[in-house]
């Protein structure tokens, strides 16, 4: 097949080209996931990728791992089941902004609260792309969508703060432009023993971009290039973070993991010799 070695090894090349629109950031973010897995040299059979519904959730269809495409918002619920059934597996959830924070909002906060060892990667394109460009919980205030023709009056979620507040032990954010940072964050998130949350700011030139006159895919990438600042820079010089999007590693604080705590209970009662 006419492609690079990474693509040949980790993709279902017979399913490509993917369904996403020209310039969609999801393809770039999906590549970051694949490169992170390649860098960590994980066995493909020990990795499960789970997704819900939406543009982002098409990703597992193209990836040559154990993959599961589930119902809307319920990717984390299915992933929790997989992890509990076989804690040796690396479980990665690829989800979207609507899938993770609207339809699956409760699953997200409770998976984070339990600190179950799942790596959640959100492809956040600020809109419901697949269904025709309705505003999502991350559409910025005042922005346009097919369902907010006069500007969105809802305030957006800060997904990283939400995940951290709910108890996620690893939290980071990168963008489709900052793709090497995205790869590094995913590597660390997979290595973190506990619930990890990485938000990848994607671009949607077809709906969000067109509705808000953000230009073509290159201009939308350039927006992230010019308007994102790493959290480490802002910690040293706070004025550099004014009116900017913060990226980087926000939180890394390992805590007891759920399946391990569960195993302790199992061992305790099996050790009693009641049967």
């Amino acid at each position: 097949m006419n492609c690079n070695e990474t693509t040949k090894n980790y993709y279902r090349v017979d399913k490509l080209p993917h369904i996403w629109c020209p310039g969609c950031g999801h393809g770039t973010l999906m590549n970051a996931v694949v490169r992170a897995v390649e860098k960590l040299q994980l066995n493909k059979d020990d990795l499960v990728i789970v997704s819900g519904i939406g543009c982002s959730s098409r990703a597992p269809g193209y990836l040559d791992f154990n993959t599961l495409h589930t119902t809307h918002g319920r990717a984390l619920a299915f992933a929790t089941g997989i992890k509990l059934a076989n804690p040796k597996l690396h479980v990665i959830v690829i989800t979207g902004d609507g899938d993770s924070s609207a339809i699956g909002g409760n699953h997200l906060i409770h998976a984070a609260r339990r600190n179950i060892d799942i790596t959640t990667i959100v492809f956040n394109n600020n809109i419901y792309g697949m269904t025709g460009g309705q505003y999502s919980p991350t559409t910025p205030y005042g922005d346009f969508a097919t369902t907010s023709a006069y500007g969105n009056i809802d305030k957006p979620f800060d997904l990283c703060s939400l995940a951290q507040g709910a108890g996620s032990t690893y939290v980071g954010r990168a963008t489709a432009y900052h793709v090497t940072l995205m790869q590094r964050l995913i590597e660390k998130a997979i290595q973190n023993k506990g619930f990890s949350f990485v938000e990848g700011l994607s671009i949607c030139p077809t709906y969000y971009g067109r509705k808000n006159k953000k230009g073509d895919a290159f201009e939308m990438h350039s927006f992230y290039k010019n308007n994102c600042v790493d959290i480490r820079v802002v910690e040293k010089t706070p004025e550099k973070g004014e009116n900017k999007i913060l990226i980087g590693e926000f939180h890394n604080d390992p805590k007891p993991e759920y399946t391990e705590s569960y195993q302790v209970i199992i061992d305790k009662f099996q050790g009693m010799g009641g049967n």
Partner: protein
Amino acid sequence: MASKKVLLQNINWCKGCGVCVGFCPKQVLKIEDDKCVIAYPDKCIFCKQCELRCPDNAIYIGGIDNGL
């Protein structure tokens, strides 16, 4: 003899979004008939910006040096 690096593409996967064209520091690429074409391959410095940013895995550096 050591093999040379070459800029390659899979035209069937290209959707002509223009991201690679925008980020190429040497203006090697251009859009023709809604597809990216490698217009000036001699100018390529193999920086891999296009490969890194292409959402469709449609452009890449091949024929990597075999170390000889």
